[in-house]
């Protein structure tokens, strides 16, 4: 961060980063969605996504990242927690114990027959929290003098 003032020509890094960023993001989304059947899940997925964001941070700088992705990561953490809590909580309205998941097969337009599981919503909460947490930590430390 101290060398920020000195302009450096990072064309190769920046070009590669833009390409690799999308690969990593897609890989992380794959990890996230595959979690229920094969290794992966919200935690790894979230870490991978944030590592893609860190790559952008390295190739450009934090200001650029903020303008490209204007996200408040603390809000993201809170949203993730809310989603996880909401998924855990919904079952008590149907007279079930806290954190009882439900799943069923649905016929969706475009996607056809799919199994939907509330566990994926819970995992989404985990995913968002992990991204929020990692990015908050890295951003705060990075921007501090």
């Amino acid at each position, binding site marked *: 961060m101290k060398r920020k003032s000195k302009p450096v020509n990072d064309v190769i890094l920046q070009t590669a980063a833009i390409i690799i960023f999308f690969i990593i993001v897609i890989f992380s989304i794959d*990890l996230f969605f*595959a*979690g*229920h*059947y*094969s*290794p*992966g*899940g*919200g*935690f*790894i997925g979230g*870490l*991978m996504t944030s*590592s893609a964001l860190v790559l952008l941070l390295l190739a450009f700088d934090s200001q650029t990242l903020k303008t490209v992705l204007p996200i408040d990561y*603390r809000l993201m*953490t*809170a949203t*993730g*927690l809310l989603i*996880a*809590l909401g998924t*855990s909580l919904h079952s008590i309205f149907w007279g079930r114990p*806290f*954190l009882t*998941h439900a*799943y069923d097969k649905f016929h969706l337009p475009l996607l056809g027959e799919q*199994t939907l*599981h509330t*566990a994926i919503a*819970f*995992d989404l*909460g*985990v995913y968002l*929290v*992990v991204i*929020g*947490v*990692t990015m*908050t*930590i890295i951003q*705060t*430390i990075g921007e*501090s*003098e």
Partner: protein
Amino acid sequence: MSVLHLAILLPLLAAPFIPLFFWGLKRIHTGWFVLIVPVLLFTYFAGYMPTTSAGEVVTKTVSWMPSLGVEFTAYVDGLSLLFALLITGIGALVVLYSIYYLDKDKESLGHFYVYLLMFMGAMLGVVLSDNMIVMYMFWELTSISSFLLIGYWYEKERSRYGAQKSMLLTVFGGLAMLGGIILLESMVGSYSIREMVANQAVIAESPLFLVAMVLILLGAFTKSAQFPFHIWLPDAMEAPTPVSAYLHSATMVKAGLYLVARMSPVFQESPVWLWTIASVGMFTMFWGSFNAVKQTDLKGILAFSTVSQLGLIMSLLGLGAAALHYEGLDENIYMVATIAAIFHLINHATFKGSLFMMVGIIDHETGTRDVRKLGGLMTVMPISFTVAVIGSLSMAGLPPFNGFLSKEMFLKATTKVASMDFFALDSIGLILPIVAFIGSVFTFIYSLLIFTRTFMGKAKFELLPKTPHEAPVGMLISPVILAILVVGFGLFPNVLSHSLIQPAVEAIYPSLVAGGEEVEVHISFWHGLTPELMMTIGVVLLGTLLFWQIGRWMGIYNRIPHRLTLNGMYDGSLVWSNKAAYRFKDNYMTGFIRSYLIYIFVFLSGMMLFTMAWLDLFNFSFENLAEIAPYEYVLGAVVVLAALAILFMRSRLPSIILLGVVGYGVALFFVFFGAPDLALTQLVIETVSVALFLLVFYHMPDISKKEVRMRFKIGNAMIAILVGATVTMLSFMALSNKSLTSISEYYKENVYELAAGKNMVNVVLVDFRGFDTLFEIVVLSLASLGIYTMIKFRTTRRTKGEGAHEAQKQTRQ
């Protein structure tokens, strides 16, 4: 809630209204409103006299905590009625006296009367409660209100010292008593004193009998200022004089006597009871009277004299237990001890109360209580002088005052000790009359000192802070009433014997009167040429001789160095325990986190090793172990070597890198052991944490960047090895002692049927055990918010710089 309960609680109920009177009606002295309470109560309790003298008791119960066996049972028999009348009667006189003693414009009377009423209610509760827990509650309330009253002039350092001392000692005794109460309850199964008396045989057979007795007696001895706990009483004299007259002569210090008398039926069969109480009381009597002579403060003399008189009554209560070992009541000569105890209790309250009030008058009218400055007040204050002479001579035990009669009975009880043929009383018991005689001689001397030094001799009015004159009439009413009682009880001793003394004595010997017999109380003024009369004549002769030659032997008091006196020991022990606690604390609370870590680790492995040895768990079986593949050896060696190498690095950077090596090695282990999720997470997390380590390293201040190898300390190495060995052994043993099958079979079978998933780890995380995950993400969020606030706050403080620091300093001031 009966009228009796309301009567007990009346002072406590009235106390909250006192400040209203104090602030609302400034023109009238608050004491006049307070006076109504004890007068009402006295007339109410006097109404019980016919009932108790007929040998009946009144019991009223209010349920308080029935599930714990705690009932507020009010119980009126002869003994409690006697005390209730003393409390309310002397209480009324003291309140009347205090109206003239305390200035309504200078003193905070609201406080004074609230404390006094609190004390009065507590004292009534103590003597009228049958349930020991309730009694204990009131008992501690007397300690607290006494503490508040002693420290009434809290600007004075001596007041605070005296209050603290009395609090420490009486609460110590009170807590010991609570222990005794709980032990007694465990034997009998009830907190009721009557139940305990009824089951006295059960208590006597219990192995904890002695412990319970000693604990109860500790409470009684500390409260009644018996040797060696008497030291708080002289220091309690810093209280206003009405308080000294009320609490520290007539009522509170008699709570211990009440307790001993009340518990007598439970314990008095035991020889230890008789011996402990009689000898402690007798020695207290001697020690108090011996020390009273050297005092120069009038209240100091009275304080030690109170100690001495309480010892006298205490020893009589102890000796009274001998009566149980004789059949019948007709020829029972030891009944006289208990009768004398009760009679002297009443007498002491009358003459000591009047003496204290007299001293208060002198203090009030001359400005000093120091006998070295006083003298020749006889002509100026004739009424006070008369009161003082009556009180002192009664205390000395001279006819025709009531003190003479009870002193004669006391001497009779001690001389009869030698003719008892049990508990070795006929041999060692011979000391008792001798000690009683010596104590009486000193009592005689200090009693003479009180009025000769104050009222006789040369007048030195110019040395006094005020010009002395006789006190106002209102102030004289109470002491004169008490002095009249002193003479009245002396001339007509039997007015009280049937109505008060006899029921009280019968309450102490329930087993003797069970057969329908009555205790005959007949106090005769002239009882023939008996040994005790000879002793009294001896006391007067020897006392006069010593009093005449007092200048010659006063020197013996200076022989004892201060450090060896009881006060010196008390002060020394306070200082010492304070210092010891500080030293102890300073030694182990070093403020270095490494010291605390040493305690934690040593304690951890110590406890573990002790438990392993205690339960004999050292069985290692290596049967069900898996094969170790060659690459696992290699990886293990790499991880161990990297971990060890961290210890020997000169610089921090290689240490961080090596830590990364360990982390990635562990991730590889996860791969080998078939945990892909763990491996993935471990890899990413390790990367992040190594990056964070590097960041911290990069920002370290230059001073600590100095590259020094970690210093080797043999103690730390030993602790590290100890902890490592303990944990290793523990895991081996846990592995060898595995007795239950794992729950994981269930997960394996149901992961698809119940949760529609195939990644078992993830299904467990979000479905079977999703609750843990929910709070783990909360932990993560908190950590990130913590980092955020920490850094943001630090930066704002740094930008504001010195200014913020200065502002903080100013707000602190």
